[in-house]
């Protein structure tokens, strides 16, 4: 059986990749996708921990992951709507052009 640490390590790697992607990429769509990567990483960790014998077959982690998926769906929907809106205003999807707050 695979030790849970492996899953956690995988989760950490995915999370880091997603985080770095979010920070480095300026394409808003890609940034959103990076966020999805991070959320998925978290899901992996949660589901893995849920397998630990200390949890007595409870579904806590899985339920949590389920809700995260729901929230991710919502965030993507709104996020992409914002991307469209931004594109309409600035004709770009580059996040560093989206500095309307600055002025």
């Amino acid at each position, binding site marked *: *059986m695979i030790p849970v640490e492996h899953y956690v390590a995988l989760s950490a790697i995915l999370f880091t990749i997603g985080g770095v992607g979010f920070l480095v990429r300026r394409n808003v769509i890609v940034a959103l996708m990076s966020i999805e990567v991070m959320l998925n990483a978290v899901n992996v960790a949660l589901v893995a921990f849920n397998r630990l014998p200390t949890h007595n077959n409870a579904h806590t982690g899985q339920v949590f992951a389920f809700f995260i998926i729901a929230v991710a769906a919502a965030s993507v929907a709104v996020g992409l709507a914002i991307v469209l809106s931004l594109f309409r205003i600035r004709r770009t999807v580059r996040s560093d052009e989206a500095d309307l707050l600055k002025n």
Partner: protein
Amino acid sequence: MSAIGYVYFYACALFAVLGALGTVGAKNPIRGAMGLLLMILSIAGLFLALHAQFLAAIQLIVYAGAIVVLFLFVIMLLGPSASTPSDHRGRIPRLIGAGLFGATGLGAMALLVSSSPKSTIGPTGYPSPTGDFGSVDAFGRIIFSQGLVPFELSSALLMVAIVGAVAVARGRHKSDPAISGAATLEAENVPHAGQAPRTAGGITREAP
């Protein structure tokens, strides 16, 4: 069994990491979306290995079926503008942040692995879960009993998200949404212009 399990895990893990790297690294967002799809599929595989069959299904349906498609849809809608040329603006802080973030992530992982109790890692593995762990039945029982309120709230959240998405994406005015939206935002940046009628009331007192 054990060996197959390892192989399966590592294969899925490898694909997941590759997919993630593809998502993050691809110049073309379409490729990024494909990478995301790859990662999602791999993770769904991992979920199966973790006795989370229902979740794996949900992962496929919601992520692969809805979210990735939505991404693709938007990318298509934007066309060539979706992929942006790189420039140097804000690159250094971004790289520093990314570096810090990466270092932290990896450091946290190292710390975790080094400090976790050795006894829990072992070849014996965990006992298989009893009954219908991870199945739709079991999941549904929990969702509709203990988790009913959050579940209903999540539906409300999705509702709100849909309405919000429609409202945001639709723009302000039906006629010429692009220009008028920009114009409104510009107008709001002009100080006080919008408040003129309100302050007038206060000033009238000074009139003798």
